[in-house]
């Protein structure tokens, strides 16, 4: 069973990476860029048929390791 997870910085946390990427893009001529923020993306493949159980495990993975919840939010998607 496959999942994807996105981890993004919370709104009020500074995103130095996104900021520089944004500046660079503007310098490259993309003037109508309002904002870009950078996060992480995980593709997860579980050896688990029970989708409820699998999703619970993915949530646990996010809470315990993949995201630092003090500064980051995460979102789990079930892959088709």
């Amino acid at each position, binding site marked *: 069973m496959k999942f994807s997870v996105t981890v993004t910085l919370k709104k*009020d*946390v*500074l*995103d*130095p*990476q996104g*900021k*520089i990427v944004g500046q660079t893009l503007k310098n490259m001529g993309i003037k109508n860029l309002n904002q870009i923020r950078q996060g992480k993306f995980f593709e997860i493949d579980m050896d688990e048929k029970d989708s409820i159980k699998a999703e619970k495990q993915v949530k646990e993975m996010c809470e*315990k*390791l*993949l995201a*630092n919840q*003090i*500064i980051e939010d995460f979102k789990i998607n079930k892959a088709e």
Partner: protein
Amino acid sequence: MKSSVIVFPGSNCDRDVAIALEKLQFKNSMIWHKETELPKSDLIVVPGGFSYGDYLRSGAIAAKSNILSEVINAGKKGALILGICNGFQILIECGLLKGALLRNSGLKFISKNILVKVQSNNNKFFNKYKTNEILKLNIAHNEGNYFTDKKHLEELENNELIPLKYCDEKGNINLKTNPNGSINNIAAIFNNNKNILGMMPHPERMVDKILSEEDGLGLFLSLMN
């Protein structure tokens, strides 16, 4: 005085800090991360380096290791803990210190000698320095851009929990003297009890006259007090 240096796969300043400690007559032990018990020590050092390659978030994976639960217990009981560079990142990831260390604002690894100003010497780690003394130390990191919320920042500022701030020769603390984008030029922070210190600069790189100035010595000397 007894010290323990915790070693993770990818640590690379463990030997350096051990040498500094031994130079000052600490009885030091190196503790491999898989161990489950910590010898009784007056000081626990979490050294710099790239534990687990800095993968995911620097310090995140080391923070899950066996020995860290021992370190956390010791810290809660009041043991002195010093996290340098990657060690600071680990102490943040395991919750002993609050806030976050983000990518440097220039998005580049920075390694150079910088200046920091001692904000207060009213603690176990800096009592051999004078307040407002300017120290030359070395930094070498990708993620040293300290960030925290307003409330915690006020707490830090109001309770002398920020021992070091980046500055210039004249002691100016401002954006121009900030190497990595750290909020309020913060280079090091304490927990509320001031028994746990996390700092980005490497004091152990400034203790040997043949190599450099010796501004780092004071920190180790303070700890012996």
